[in-house]
């Protein structure tokens, strides 16, 4: 009888264990038990989230590919494949390697779909930089991303970084990757065709990341030998070779299916490929290239060694494929065959170590989780503006907010990433979204990631909607048509009803916003249990989004271009300060409700800006987000060293006018002759348009509130983050 301690340590409940015994009709072997434990874990099987994930729209204005591992959209004869994934817990333990292997994993998901990776982004969250360990994490994570991404030759073109106490003890590292291929070249993640060989390709297998399964060592095997689970080490050089070898392999036309050995390694890839192909698979672990001696079957099946994949090829073609991997000095060996009995059978050292029904393995149970609103939220949502004293010196306030690491320049980060390799990046980091050209076409691709988790904490439904709306807005400001979404849902322990309530409401927010913008959610990832002893992280449903530019020449950037240009603010400024950076940085308060959001209004503002860019009316467009109008206006000035003289928005209190984070607002600049045309478009679409002022000079002036040399602003903004590292 398998001891309760063993299966509990593997993360299985009593009921789950009983179900496994029932499926097997006998006591499972240790290998089988380990396989069930990973396949039914949240990481692979999504038992606690599948029910809600089903609600995400799978269709939008572009034909969507919602597939096996990653997803994408079709644009003409191209498939654009993209996905985001978390590597939070490994990064918290070992930031460099954790982040590096996070990048490696997501990129493998892209090229195993047949698409060559053309860009990466990352969304990062840390605790405050006043704590040394958080500085260590920031430096390590950035180091890991640059180490891996730069070596691969996939440009890291964008992302975001926020700092908030709730991430102390549990940082977030969400990596997104985008790839492109001809629609007809897409690969499948399945194994089919009885007798077709299954090949193991890439690096050898060691005891990396075996995690909870190490309890099996004490369960059945002798003590003594070192079997401690270890950190996964990234090997970008091997991955680069793997990309090239895979592209060559797929080009032969001999591949039936291909899948990354990501989380849960061989277990996941074998079971899921067989299940997706409606077939079975028999593999022989004796043929798996091993890096360490004396590995047990369960260790080989669970290993999370990096840079490995499983490929199902057409019978008789294995030699040809082997040659390609040999050329790149990579392993490429046949370890098994497709069978017709819908089972995964695993042999090792002359014994059958596992023999499980693929469907039972691949279809984790689904749980309905209780969800209740946190008790104190209503109280936190109350914000009486009369209790917030208005500052006297707005110069000082602006400088302080610009220096807040969440707002400050991220150049220290993105200048460590090669964001230009592949010679496609036409809008570099520092604007609202990165823009890449699609070689061989006149089209472009824009990409962004967004999520303000403070809003989600205050109001998960609206906060998640804002994340989607802001992502769309960033794309539109770049001249792109928002096309489709990937998400990375980072939450606390789903077994706690208040955490699950956040999860549920955020998903609903994403669903409704995506429907409003008519975009599909083509891929995503769930990361639960993001908690430290102090509690859960802020709910963080990161939205990754891509947009399409029909004509690459009609792209737009966020910074001012010409002295003398007029500056307009589109959208309405309300008297709201809830959840703002101003409230946090200046008044040390997280309170109130998230800013209001009217999706129809949002769409109207975006429509005006999109059309103005298409018509060539405007020279720059920048989304107003964290830090409000004053910060957004300052950001417009830095790149070309162009100051601005603006007036104050009337009708709301001064601090709200300057720093309130009302949604659906975009700052644009244009030649004096275009003002009338844009105003007309605004009237047609029912969008507020406010004449802010004029570009020029070396000063930053907002009416009587702020007047500073641009250089002073740049100093605060430029060093706000880098002074900590």
């Amino acid at each position, binding site marked *: 009888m398998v001891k309760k301690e063993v299966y509990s340590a593997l993360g299985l409940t009593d009921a789950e264990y009983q179900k496994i015994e029932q499926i097997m009709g006998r006591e499972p072997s240790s290998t089988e038990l380990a396989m069930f434990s990973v396949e039914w874990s949240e990481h692979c099987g999504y038992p606690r989230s599948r029910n809600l994930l089903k609600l995400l729209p799978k269709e939008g204005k572009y034909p969507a590919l919602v597939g096996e591992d990653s997803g994408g959209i079709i644009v003409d004869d191209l498939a654009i494949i993209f996905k985001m994934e978390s590597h939070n817990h490994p990064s918290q333990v070992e930031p460099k390697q954790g982040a590096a292997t996070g990048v490696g994993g997501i990129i493998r998901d892209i090229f195993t779909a047949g698409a060559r990776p053309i860009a990466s982004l990352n969304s990062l969250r840390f605790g405050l930089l006043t704590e040394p360990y958080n500085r260590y994490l920031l430096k390590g994570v950035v180091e890991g991303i640059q180490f891996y991404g*730069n*070596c691969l030759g996939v440009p890291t073109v964008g992302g975001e970084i926020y700092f908030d106490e709730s991430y102390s003890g549990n940082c977030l590292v969400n990596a997104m990757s985008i790839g492109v291929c001809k629609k007809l070249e897409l690969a499948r993640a399945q194994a089919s065709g009885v007798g077709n060989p299954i090949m193991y390709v890439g690096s050898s297998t060691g005891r990396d990341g075996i995690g909870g399964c190490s309890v099996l060592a004490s369960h059945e095997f002798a003590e003594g030998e070192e079997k401690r689970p270890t950190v996964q080490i990234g090997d970008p050089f091997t991955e680069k070779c793997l990309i090239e070898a895979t592209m060559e392999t797929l080009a032969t036309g001999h591949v039936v299916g291909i899948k990354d050995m990501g989380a849960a390694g061989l277990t996941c890839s074998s079971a899921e490929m067989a299940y997706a192909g409606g077939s079975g698979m028999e593999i022989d672990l004796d043929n798996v290239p091993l890096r360490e001696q004396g590995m047990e079957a369960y260790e080989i099946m669970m290993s999370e060694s990096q840079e490995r994949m499983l490929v199902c090829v057409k019978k008789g073609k294995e030699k040809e494929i082997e040659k390609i991997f040999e050329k*790149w000095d990579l392993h490429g060996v046949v370890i098994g065959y497709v069978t017709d009995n819908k089972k995964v059978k695993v042999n090792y050292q002359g014994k059958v170590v596992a023999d499980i029904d693929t469907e039972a393995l691949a279809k984790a149970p689904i749980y309905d989780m209780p969800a209740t609103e946190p008790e104190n939220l209503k109280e936190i949502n109350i914000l009486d503006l009369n209790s917030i004293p208005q500052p006297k010196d707005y110069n000082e306030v602006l400088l302080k907010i610009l220096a807040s690491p969440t707002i400050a320049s991220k150049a220290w980060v993105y200048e460590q*990433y*090669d964001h230009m390799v592949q*010679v496609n*990046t036409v809008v570099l980091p520092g604007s609202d979204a990165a823009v890449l050209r699609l070689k061989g076409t006149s089209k472009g691709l824009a990409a962004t990631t967004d999520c303000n988790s403070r809003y989600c904490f205050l109001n998960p439904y609206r906060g998640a909607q804002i994340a989607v709306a802001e992502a769309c807005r960033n794309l539109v400001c770049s001249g792109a048509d928002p096309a489709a979404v990937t998400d990375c849902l980072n939450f606390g322990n789903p077994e706690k009803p208040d955490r699950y309530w956040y999860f549920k409401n955020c998903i609903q927010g994403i669903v409704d916003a995506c429907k409003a913008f008519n975009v599909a959610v083509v891929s995503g990832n769930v990361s639960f249990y993001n908690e430290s002893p102090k509690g859960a992280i802020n709910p963080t449903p990161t939205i990754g989004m891509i947009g399409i530019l029909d004509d690459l020449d009609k792209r737009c950037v966020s910074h001012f271009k010409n002295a003398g240009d007029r500056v307009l603010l589109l959208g309405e400024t309300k008297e709201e300060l809830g959840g703002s950076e101003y409230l946090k940085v200046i008044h040390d308060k997280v309170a109130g409700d998230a800013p209001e959001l009217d999706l129809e209004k949002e769409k109207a503002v975006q429509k005006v800006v999109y059309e103005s860019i298409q018509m060539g009316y405007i020279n720059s467009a920048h989304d107003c987000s964290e830090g409000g109008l004053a910060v957004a206006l300052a950001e417009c000035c830095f790149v070309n060293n162009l100051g601005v003289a603006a007036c104050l928005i009337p009708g709301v209190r001064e601090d709200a006018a300057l720093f309130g984070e009302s949604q659906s607002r975009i700052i644009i600049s244009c030649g004096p002759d275009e003002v009338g045309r844009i105003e007309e478009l605004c009237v047609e679409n029912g969008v507020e348009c406010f004449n802010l002022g004029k570009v020029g000079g070396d000063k930053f002036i907002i009416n009587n509130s702020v007047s500073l040399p641009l250089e002073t602003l740049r100093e605060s903004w430029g060093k706000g983050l880098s002074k900590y590292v």
Partner: protein
Amino acid sequence: MKFGVVVFPGSNCDQDCFHVVDQVIKQPVEFIWHKTTKLDNFDCLIIPGGFSYGDYLRCGAIARFSPIMEPVIRFANNGGLVIGICNGFQILLEAGLLPGAMLRNKNLHFICKFVNLRVEATDTPFSSGYNKGQILHIPIAHNEGNYYIDDKGLAGLKKNNQIVFRYVNNPNGAIDDIAGIVNKNRNVLGMMPHPERCSEDALGGSDGRMVWESIVKWSKKKSTAR
């Protein structure tokens, strides 16, 4: 004229160089796999940037021993044009085709950004189209571009006018602001900045394009002279 782009495992600017030669300056170009041991009638070899062998021991150290390097060295010694960019420069240093070595950037970080370069020598096949003193806006992207050479070597570089490009604001600590050098015979160039990343206006500037055009012009002149 025919260009060849050498591909090592881990090269990652090979496709970019190919793209520029093929699509921008529209000259014949082929990839050359590093295990190749013979070169057939190329006029100019490009050793591209990237991370050959992951740069795992030292940048360029392992690639330097790839089978292709023997014919590359022979080609260079016979006067053939060789341009090494970034990792390609590092490989040429390791191979001894150019003097000196690379250290880690002074700030110990990878740096990717546009910088300004000053053209110091125009009497090379790679820079003849520029004006002496011209300032180029051009991207760098490297971890180890901190060029080092001992005093005697530096004096030699200066004496022979081998320094082709200098940084206007030294980003990495390179000795004497050196960004690119040629060998004594002036047919082998190594440079850390990436001209292939700024050869088209869409990419934010085309100051690098003249490197390729200089090569083509030089080559044409040479073949008519022959």
